[in-house]
């Protein structure tokens, strides 16, 4: 069930980021807004890459893509 939690978390981060961006823009601090959005994006990117690497590890183990093909793939 933790997938659903993570999905909601990422969506929440996205929405909150957008709101912060608009608020900061109205306050006149345009550049900080861009920085905040960038940092939020990087946080989500790290989460996604973590799950992606877990997926690739599992695929390598399930489909026996590890043994002989070490040179070809990795």
């Amino acid at each position, binding site marked *: 069930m933790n997938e659903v939690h993570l999905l909601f978390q990422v969506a929440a981060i996205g929405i909150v980021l957008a709101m912060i961006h608009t608020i900061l823009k109205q306050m006149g601090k345009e550049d900080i807004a861009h920085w905040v959005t960038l940092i939020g994006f990087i946080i989500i990117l790290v989460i996604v890459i973590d799950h992606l690497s877990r997926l690739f590890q599992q*695929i390598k183990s399930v489909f026996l893509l590890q043994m002989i093909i070490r040179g070809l793939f990795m």
Partner: protein
Amino acid sequence: MQLLQILAVVIIASLLVILVRERNESISFLLVIIIGVFIFLYILSHISQLFDVFNQIISRFNVSIPHLDTILKVIGIAYITEFASHLLKDADLEAIAVKVEMVGKIFILVLALPIFIAVLETLMHFIPH
């Protein structure tokens, strides 16, 4: 009933993607990637059970399927390349998606080369010199 569960999760997640897409495009694409990863992880657990049953059948009835591991590898490569290329297509990056598919085909070809060679050798034996 697990099917209904996973479908519900996917529908909810797609609603989230549409919601986030209005505000910023890039994070919605990350969300799409995460959904794809979760579905794949879910499927992979079932596929590994499938392969275990397959191996048990082979070992019990000692039916030897030649090149079984190559077949598994080809399936794995096809799986991953299709995952990546459909993601890119979804992000309107058609050109890169086509390239990714080409890379996948090349790897499958390289993997299947020894089988081609084996087939050719058996053919050559039939032709009398």
